[in-house]
């Protein structure tokens, strides 16, 4: 019994051939994604490197895709810090790219903006259960009256959701009602919306993107980021160790954390909206290739210069960024460029962690000094699994990751002394695809392939 697990990435189509009995990885292969012609061509090219003998006995095929822009979504809620944030969390947790998020009653300009973004899907939230009804109903009416044409998932106030769906019915291709993403202001409930988004991805969006043939032939079941997230979730549940995945890509940096995130120290006050145990953030301005210029605008140049063994010439950085962002296949040429690439990667990881992890603030009250925690406490993260071209092709990914994980800021609740693993074979998405039906085999593959790079001493 063998499984063929495919990921149609935006650049490469990656294939993993896995033995289920006994569980283990047989081989991996990749070929450029052929999004202009037919995705199957790139897949055939990737499969060509396997022998006929190797491919014999494949009984299970599953695929994920981030080709053709991935799953592009717009989120709508009521209050920015509450249902808008909850809708964003649900969408990110479904593996979507959140193009934009809107609060309160949609204006004409905002409706036009959504039209221009051409999302694959709209997630409509607003109101806690039994709470505000007017805004979600008004937004449903405004969407229905507009020229917007995309499937809609309604995940707002349960007392208004059916009515909102009835307003939208017939005006958009498909309406799905699911559980409220925020049933109470202190509670998130993202799971039903994640499932509904995935359901529509399978039934509507793959067809709209012309991926239905691929779906039939190789079982396209989810967007790539969701497959990666499923792998992390599986690892977390199976090992009982709090886990983090860092995917340092060419266009974005994704961070997933798998931990309840509650304070590790007694005596802290937790403030801010609730956080999901499985949390994903996507940083569109922190990419190592396509988004490198944006990345350099974000990270402090001083910090970058300090971590280099040579002085940086004026103009060297922008020139490097220009060359590197031209091609996704760009690899640093000489020793200096490698050092520069490594330093940028470290800085990108630090910034992505600062945004993903929770933080501590010192507050003085008449009752004395207090620590206020916002976001997730990830200091007890036991395993960090990292992937991405800049790491895999880097000379010393271990050193690079140690630098990336050393924020030197006690007020950011990022991992303190985790074990580090490198996903050199891009196996995470495959493991996530396999894990839904064969968790033991998926776990065995992960343990087989993830390369341990040692730890960090807290």
């Amino acid at each position, binding site marked *: 019994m063998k499984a063929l697990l495919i990921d149609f990435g935006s650049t490469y189509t990656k294939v993993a051939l896995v033995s289920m009995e006994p569980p283990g990885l047989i081989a991996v292969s990749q070929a450029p994604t052929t999004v202009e012609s037919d995705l199957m061509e790139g897949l055939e090219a990737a499969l060509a490197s396997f022998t006929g003998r190797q491919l014999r006995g494949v009984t299970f095929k599953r695929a994920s895709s981030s080709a053709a822009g991935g799953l592009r979504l717009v989120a709508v809620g009521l*209050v920015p810090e509450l249902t808008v944030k909850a809708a964003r969390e649900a969408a990110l947790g479904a593996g979507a790219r959140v193009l934009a998020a809107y609060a309160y009653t949609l204006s004409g300009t905002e409706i036009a903006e959504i039209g221009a973004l051409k999302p694959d899907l709209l997630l409509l939230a*607003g109101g806690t259960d*039994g*709470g505000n009804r007017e805004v979600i109903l008004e937004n449903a009416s405004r969407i229905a009256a507009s020229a917007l044409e995309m499937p809609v998932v309604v995940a707002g106030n349960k007392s208004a959701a059916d009515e909102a769906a009835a307003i939208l019915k017939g005006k958009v291709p498909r309406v799905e009602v699911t559980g409220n993403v925020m049933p109470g202001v*202190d509670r998130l409930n993202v799971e039903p919306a994640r499932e509904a988004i995935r359901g529509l991805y399978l039934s509507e969006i793959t067809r709209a993107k012309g991926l239905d043939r691929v779906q039939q032939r190789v079982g396209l079941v989810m967007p790539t980021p969701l497959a990666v997230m499923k792998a992390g979730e599986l690892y977390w549940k199976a090992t009982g160790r709090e886990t983090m995945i860092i995917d340092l890509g060419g266009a974005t940096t994704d961070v997933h954390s798998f931990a309840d995130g509650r304070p590790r120290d007694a005596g802290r006050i937790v403030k801010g909206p609730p956080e999901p145990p499985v949390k994903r953030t996507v940083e569109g301005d922190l990419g190592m290739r396509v988004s490198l210029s944006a990345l350099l605008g974000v990270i402090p140049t001083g910090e970058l210069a300090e971590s280099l063994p040579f002085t940086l010439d004026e103009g060297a950085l922008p020139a490097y960024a220009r060359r590197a962002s031209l091609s996704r296949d760009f690899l640093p040429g000489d020793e200096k460029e490698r050092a520069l690439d490594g330093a940028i990667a470290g800085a990108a990881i630090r910034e992505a962690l600062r945004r993903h992890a929770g933080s501590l603030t010192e507050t003085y009250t008449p009752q004395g000094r207090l620590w206020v925690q916002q976001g997730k406490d990830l200091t007890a993260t036991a395993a960090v699994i990292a992937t991405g071209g800049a790491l895999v092709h880097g000379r010393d990914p271990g050193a690079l990751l140690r630098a990336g994980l050393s924020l030197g800021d006690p007020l950011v609740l990022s991992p303190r002394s985790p074990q580090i693993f490198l996903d050199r074979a891009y196996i995470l998405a495959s493991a996530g695809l396999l894990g839904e039906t064969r968790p033991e085999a998926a776990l065995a593959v992960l343990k087989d392939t993830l390369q341990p790079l040692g730890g960090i001493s807290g």
Partner: protein
Amino acid sequence: MLRNNRVVLGVIGADVHAVGNKILEMVLTEAGFEVINLGVMVSQEEFINAAVESAAGAIWVSSLYGHGEIDCRGLREKCYEAGIGDIHLYVGGNLVVGKRTFDEVEKLFKEMGYDRVYPPGTLPEEAIAHLKEDLADESATD
């Protein structure tokens, strides 16, 4: 019969007095209200955000540490801005420090837009009776 049974509850400002807050949550719940309890150290924005999402009928603000006047000022104005200007605002606790009579304090907070103001030592039942009055459904017949 109430037209709205949802109350947003919290201790405002940098105040961390948690016990009274828990007691109020308990008695309000027992009296049949749905309590959206934001706990301690609650900012004005948090009160308003929670009230908007939950379409609550009232906000109950507690302040025990004497800085109530500074912390509570402007909440009514912000409610107007957020489109919930007609929400019932209740406030109670050790609202100010210094030698002021409760009459002065009540007048001050009413001018700030609070509908009901309570001195220290008020029993929760008294305020709950007021809440039932304020949130009664006038269109319903007994």
